[in-house]
């Protein structure tokens, strides 16, 4: 049984209530942290090796150390609870079941960064979670962990929950800041980075829910202990939200030493492919990261076992690897159509593009239309090359990474499943009633039991 740091207490009866959470050892991290120097906390987080859980995997301590500290200017911490990457629903789980863990992490982190007003920006659709969080905040305040002069340290902090209103792009940190300022969620052109000029032009740190919650075990265990969990530069535990054609979809806290195979097939996690089918492909880190066929998912191109951690999942680069991303683990069984799945993702990115920059605004819609054409049996062979060319012209040429995120799934689908695209083009009527299935991939996928 893997060690749990975040969700260990998530199912203790009544854990949403302050008293129960406190009885289970909650808020000890705040008591410890508020006796430390803020810079010492930043050092601890650095030493823990914690990497951002929002998708990019950037070292959290390092990010914190970039925060500008000009005299007389407020600094802000913003918690990114926008969670809109298809396949990702882990932050929701954490906030819903153990809200005080996030609040505790926010208090410690706000103290470390010198934020007296911290905002949780939550996606608008998670409407009922707003109430859960506000309840937790109110309780923490009643008990002296929020408000003025917290635990007699002269540290003041208020935490507010701000609801978004339906826009994936507001997960991008500068779009999130714009949205929090009451504007359209157009990502800003960087530099300046939020650490210098963020919310209301003040220095700002934006971190993911899970990242900020992980600060609690780091405080409680100490950075060294925390860093011992996991492997290499993938320290600590990671929440993975597993979905698609598996027996046990849900949110799992893993220690990043387990193999992908164990994660998919063990009863402790996904419990194998649903309905006794075989594994065809998987997107291991949220819809933006490259899809991998079963063979490359379970083993790297070199034939080594692939593990559920940052390094191993990206082993082989985009040619034969993928990414940890946001931890949204999407599994496709043998009956699923890659073209159709890619089409839904292309539609998603077209729908979510803010429309500011031309490659993303125009290119995402174009890709969707071509995919739709192929999927409806009207494609021609040159459409596949055109699709490849369009994604290559979007990638790297846009204001924010949504352009890349829209390009990568299309690129990876063509890279690994070109045969299936060709089959659609060559069997215009068949592709409407049948799936390409797995049979055609039999040789290539022979590693799969």
């Amino acid at each position, binding site marked *: 049984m893997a060690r749990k740091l975040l969700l260990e207490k998530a199912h203790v009866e009544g854990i949403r209530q302050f008293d129960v959470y406190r009885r289970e050892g909650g808020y000890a991290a705040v008591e410890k942290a508020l006796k430390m120097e803020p810079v010492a906390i930043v050092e601890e987080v650095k030493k823990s090796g914690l990497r951002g859980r929002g998708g990019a995997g950037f070292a959290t301590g390092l990010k914190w150390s970039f925060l500008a500290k000009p005299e007389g200017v407020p600094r802000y911490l913003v918690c990114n609870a926008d969670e809109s990457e298809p*396949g990702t629903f882990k932050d929701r789980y954490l906030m819903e079941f153990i809200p005080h863990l996030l609040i505790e992490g926010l208090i410690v982190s706000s103290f470390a960064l010198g934020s007296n007003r911290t905002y949780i920006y939550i996606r608008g*659709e998670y409407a009922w979670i707003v109430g859960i969080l506000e309840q937790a905040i109110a309780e923490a305040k009643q008990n002296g962990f929020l408000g003025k002069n917290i635990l007699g340290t002269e540290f003041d902090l208020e935490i507010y929950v701000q609801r*978004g209103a339906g826009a994936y792009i507001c997960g991008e940190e500068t779009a999130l800041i714009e949205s929090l300022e*009451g*504007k359209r*969620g157009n990502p800003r052109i960087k530099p300046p980075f939020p650490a210098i000029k963020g919310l209301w032009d003040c220095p700002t740190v934006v971190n993911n829910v899970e990242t900020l919650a992980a600060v609690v075990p780091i405080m409680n265990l100490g950075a060294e202990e925390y860093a011992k969990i996991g492997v290499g530069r993938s320290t600590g535990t990671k929440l993975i939200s597993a979905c*698609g*054609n598996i027996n046990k979809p849900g949110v799992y806290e893993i220690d990043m030493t387990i193999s992908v195979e164990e994660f998919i097939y063990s009863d402790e996690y996904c419990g194998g492919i649903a309905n006794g089918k075989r594994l065809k492909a998987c997107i291991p880190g949220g819809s933006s990261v490259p899809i991998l066929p079963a063979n490359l998912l379970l083993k790297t191109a070199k034939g080594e076992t692939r593990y559920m951690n940052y390094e191993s999942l990206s082993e082989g680069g985009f040619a034969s690897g993928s990414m940890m991303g946001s931890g949204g683990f999407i599994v496709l069984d043998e009956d699923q159509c890659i073209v159709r799945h890619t089409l839904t993702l292309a539609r*998603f990115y077209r729908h979510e593009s803010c429309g500011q920059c031309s490659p993303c605004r125009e290119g995402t819609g174009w890709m969707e239309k071509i995919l739709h054409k192929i999927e409806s049996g009207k494609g021609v062979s040159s459409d596949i090359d055109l699709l490849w060319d369009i994604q290559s012209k979007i990638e790297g040429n846009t204001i924010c990474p949504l352009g890349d995120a829209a390009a990568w799934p299309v690129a990876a689908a063509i890279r690994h499943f070109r045969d299936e695209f060709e089959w659609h083009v060559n069997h215009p009527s068949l592709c409407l009633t049948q799936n390409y299935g797995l049979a055609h991939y039999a040789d290539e996928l022979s590693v799969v039991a």
Partner: protein
Amino acid sequence: MVKFSEHTMKEVEAIIARYPQGKQKSALIPLLHLAQEEFGGWLSAEAMDHVASILSIESIEVYEVATFYSMFNLQPVGKHVLEVCQTGPCMLRGSDDIIAYIKSKLGIGVGETTADGMFTLKTVECLGACGYAPMMQMGMHYKEHLTPERVDQIIADCYNHK
């Protein structure tokens, strides 16, 4: 004339107080949520102008924001809005069939409202419930693990509680 109730105005003030002085524009999205709730599930131009005047901003700043976010309805909608997710992970678990089922059951297409004004059907993109697919949002809540039977039940419940 649309105008927030006194009770809502208290809430509005509390929201504005969350931000530093002069940054009241930050309250725009929360206020639009309140307006949509209070003024019949959608945002009319008058409702948006009302919000603009409360926050001392130009109306166009409100329109720009309201039209950007997909949760704001700019046209009247039915009493219940069924927002079915159609993105990849839900598609893998049969969301297409659920959408087709609701369409035939209610006799409406996507974006349409039933003649009795009870239901509007919308398709939406990933709502962060991929593991509990297929799913839809109804008002403040999620309806997950949808099957045709569950859809029947949900619709029947709406009629029973009207």
